[in-house]
């Protein structure tokens, strides 16, 4: 039973399209994240939600819109896809919120590889 699951695992699409990536965690964690890993393996945080509330928004273009319908789900919608959006997007969760002593002990999903043509 996967702790943090993301769908789809692979996504190939044309520039200008809109796409979504879904994430669900069954760990009972209150905090969820989206990270982007580029082609050079560089990892950077995009968003963090704690109990459905946006905590971190890391200067991501507003074409990216996270949505957290409940604390077990954090979806990522991307409008008007660009070539530079090609990357692996990781969802993660943690038991403790940002700023707490237990923060950033993350359980990651398997990643969603987005290719924009």
């Amino acid at each position: 039973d996967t702790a943090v699951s993301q769908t789809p695992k692979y996504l190939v699409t044309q520039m200008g399209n809109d796409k979504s990536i879904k994430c669900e965690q069954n760990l009972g964690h209150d905090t969820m994240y989206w990270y982007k890993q580029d082609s050079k393996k560089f990892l950077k945080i995009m968003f963090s939600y704690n109990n459905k509330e946006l905590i971190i928004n890391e200067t991501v273009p507003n074409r990216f819109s996270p949505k957290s319908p409940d604390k077990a789900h954090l979806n990522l919608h991307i409008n008007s896809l660009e070539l530079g959006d090609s990357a692996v997007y990781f969802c993660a969760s943690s038991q403790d919120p940002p700023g707490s002593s237990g923060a950033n002990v993350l359980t990651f999903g398997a990643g969603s590889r987005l290719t924009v043509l």
Partner: protein
Amino acid sequence: AQKVTQAQTEISVVEKEDVTLDCVYETRDTTYYLFWYKQPPSGELVFLIRRNSFDEQNEISGRYSWNFQKSTSSFNFTITASQVVDSAVYFCALSSQNTDKLIFGTGTRLQVFP
């Protein structure tokens, strides 16, 4: 500014060799946390360890050990008697009291050959 440097881009060793992955960090905060994450070829990142800035005691977990040295701002990771299954990209990361987000280094790719 917060920064994590992993100068070793790639390391190759033969099974049973010991290997140390270097990590140097920069922060002006007095309370901070250091992490190591492993990304095996399957792609999923796995948490290995977290240390806070007030605990310089080295830690050992099986074949893994971590050496935290505040004097040199380093948090190095040693794998003893490496195995092929240790092949992965290893990321060092930093967060602090004043910066909630996790700042990752660029990763070190470790290849262990049989």
